[in-house]
């Protein structure tokens, strides 16, 4: 019975360990999956005054549009800018707010009375900056994320052009960009994102549009390719010039480029990250990323060779870095003295094989056999020696009682039967070169 009990205990321990491992693994994958998810929509219906009657007499949209729905209303701002007060009713009706029946005064909360209270805006940008604050009332999650963004930082530093909610989403024409159930961005919306960003980042947009990713998106409507937000994030868009961003960037690229579900469609290798990490550059960047994510290293990341926004196909005849002369241009950015042989010192994401980097492949192959051969020989000899020692010891312990220590310098010809227990009598008491078993010793000069 005790034996059965013990077995059960061992079985239980195994189960717990196994369970622990499984939980750990799943939690790791879940964490990584969560990390990959875009921060999206923590907007909840309950935050909304959905029951319009509960907030008192609501001024209906018809009343507002009675004045603002016809072209003509405008006001003069402090600096002389003319602010158009016209709201296209059709445009609003088509917006996500219009479709869901939100009232004008739910955003323009102070405009429920007439005459409207004074609106002291210095200029038209000031109008936007003041009014965009109301987005926080329903979309505080996204709003707070934007507060961590590079745009908010720029605003805080006094750059008034830096984007706020309405600059990207629009105001009265705000569209539904995510699936209302899954909160995942809609595929056709992805096509519009670069255009949205281009309103302020037009030079970068032009580079992107000609890149392998941008061309696929804009010309083929291919939504497998990354748009701006896939690399830069959505609301909490970080500063992409920091050391932290640079060190993280290989993982960013790898999130698609190690995914066979996407890469297999285009016949692109998914070994790009492990081959990068295995090399000097990638090893360094990976260690920096793990150990000191804030400190800068000049070892290249993906975009130093492949380009930042102007990433081209590697087999592009003019810019593709599959061509050694094109790669050399990239090498020379960091290695100004590099010559034509130098680019092939980098294995171009290949795993050595007889076809690619045969020399490296055969060096590896040589050692694959050479190391076990040498070490195996050594282990066999050492093992034999140890085995013999044990054998002798156990035999002596069994059959021969402890014997007096015999002087190992015993007279020639006398066989020492009982050597000291510490050292096996393993040498010839007197070497006889004429022994048929023995060969000539070479020490006689």
């Amino acid at each position, binding site marked *: 019975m005790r034996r059965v009990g013990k077995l059960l205990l061992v079985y239980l321990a195994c189960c717990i360990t196994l369970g622990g491992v499984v939980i750990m693994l799943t939690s790791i994958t879940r964490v990584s999956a969560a990390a990959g998810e875009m921060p999206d929509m923590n907007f909840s219906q309950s935050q909304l005054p959905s029951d319009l009657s509960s907030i008192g007499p609501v001024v209906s949209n018809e*009343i507002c549009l*009675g*004045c603002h729905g016809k*072209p*003509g209303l*405008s006001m003069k701002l402090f600096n002389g800018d*003319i602010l*158009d007060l016209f709201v296209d009713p059709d445009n609003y009706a088509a917006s996500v707010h219009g479709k869901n029946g939100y009232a004008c005064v739910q955003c323009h909360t102070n405009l429920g*009375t*007439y*005459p409207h209270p004074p609106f002291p805006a210095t200029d038209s940008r000031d109008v936007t900056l003041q009014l965009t604050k109301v987005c926080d009332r329903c979309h505080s999650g996204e709003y707070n994320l934007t507060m961590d963004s590079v745009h908010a930082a720029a605003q805080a530093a006094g750059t008034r*052009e830096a984007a706020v909610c309405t600059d990207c989403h629009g105001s009265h024409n705000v569209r539904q960009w995510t699936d209302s159930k899954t909160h995942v961005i809609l595929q056709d919306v992805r096509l519009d994102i670069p255009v949205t960003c281009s309103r*302020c980042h*037009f*030079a*970068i947009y032009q*580079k992107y549009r000609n890149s392998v990713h941008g061309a696929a998106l804009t010309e083929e409507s291919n939504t497998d390719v990354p748009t701006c937000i896939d690399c830069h994030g959505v609301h909490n868009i970080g500063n992409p010039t920091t050391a932290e961003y640079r060190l993280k960037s290989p993982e960013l690229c790898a999130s698609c480029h190690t995914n066979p579900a996407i890469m297999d469609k285009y016949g692109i290798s998914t070994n790009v990250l492990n081959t990068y990490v295995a090399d*000097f550059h990638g*090893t*360094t960047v990976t*260690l*920096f990323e793990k150990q000191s994510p804030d400190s*800068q290293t*000049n070892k290249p990341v993906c*975009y130093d060779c492949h380009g*930042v*926004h102007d990433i081209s196909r590697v087999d592009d005849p003019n810019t593709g870095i599959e061509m050694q002369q094109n790669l050399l241009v990239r090498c020379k950015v960091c*290695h100004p*003295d590099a*010559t034509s*042989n130098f680019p*092939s*010192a*980098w294995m171009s994401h290949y795993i*050595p094989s007889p076809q690619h*980097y045969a*020399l*490296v492949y055969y*060096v*590896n192959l040589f*050692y694959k056999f*050479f190391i076990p051969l*040498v070490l195996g020989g*050594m282990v066999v*000899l*050492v093992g*034999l*020696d140890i085995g*013999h020692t044990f054998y002798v010891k156990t035999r002596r312990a069994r059959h021969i009682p402890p014997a007096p220590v015999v002087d*190992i*310098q015993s007279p020639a010809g006398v066989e020492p039967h009982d050597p000291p227990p510490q*050292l096996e009598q*393993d*040498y*010839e008491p007197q*070497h006889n070169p004429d022994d048929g078993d*023995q060969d000539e*010793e070479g*020490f006689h*000069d």
Partner: protein
Amino acid sequence: MTESTMGSSSQVSRSGDRVTYARFDISQRVEHFLFLLSFTILGLTGLIQKFSAYQLSDSLILALGGIERVRIIHHYSAIVMMIVSGYHVLVLAYKVFVLRARWTMLPVIEDFQHLFHDIGYFLGLRKYRGYYGRYNYAEKVEYLAVVWGTIIMGLTGFMMWNPLSTTQLLPGDFIPAAKAAHGAEAILAVLAIIVWHFYHVHIKHFNKSMFNGKLSHTEMMHEHPAELAQIESGQVNRRPPLKVLRRRQQVFFPVALIFTLAFGFGVYKFANFEVTAITTVPQGETARVFVPVTPTPRPSPTPPPTLAPGVEVGAMTWDGYFAGLFRNRCSTCHGVTKVGGLSLSTYQDALTGGNTGPAIVPGDPDSSILVQKQSAGNHPGQLTIDELDQVIAWIKAGAPEK
């Protein structure tokens, strides 16, 4: 490494009953210590680079101050090892060319016989081990492995340290090949030291001769019986006559000096051969970040509607002023929607009024509900005081339509 026995007098020393045999002089022991020190550091700092993805390596790299520091330590240790190796070659040359010592480290056929004897002994087929001389096959294997390893590591290390110069002469794939060989050779060397060296000189029997320079008679019997027999029979390397020695030294020392200078220069160049890369961070995106689409597309304000033709603009009449005022101020509620039954869309509507009575009673502002409501204040769509005064004055004047 050749034998450098300085005659039987210095070979054997006796203190009381104990007889000891000199094995390694102090310079050899220092050399060994420096080599093992640099070897250990190189092995450690190298393997944690090779296996940097493992947590243990990661922790060690962090403890040593980061990957860049680890590389610097690795490079300095390599320089120490190169200097020790250069010194070793120099001493070797002295022993070979000046002392004309025997090449006791060269493998000979006898070593293979000893190996077979040992295997036979281990398997119980022979009674005794091989009859070893000054260096047995185990020591020779290890020495030659060190020579081979140092050459391979030095060459491949140079290639990785100086990839630009290497690729001026050799194809680029020599660099990753050098890296592969360097790493594999390192594993071989470290494991061989652990399996072979540690077993033979530490585990099997702790051999202190590399630290105190001496072996006991017992140890000599076990490990170098042939050499012991040689010593005891007086067959030892004899120093050449002083005259001969001086003559050889006169040639050797200048050559050694040149070698030392050349080697020192070589080591210096090795460490400073080329400037491989820039020290600044390569620039990322070069395009300007904020380039708005110009001109910023903003809808131009739509012009205010022109008044109906023929109307005397500004005349204090319904058509001239008050129709517009009420449209702008009141029509959101009192237009088509007729809140409270009131519409101010037309003059007639205003006279008719809403549920509580006529909004405008010409000539009697106090009876006009519009005036009453507006005077009380807080009406949605509140007229300003000036506007209200204008309305009262207009009603007093009979509220003319035209």
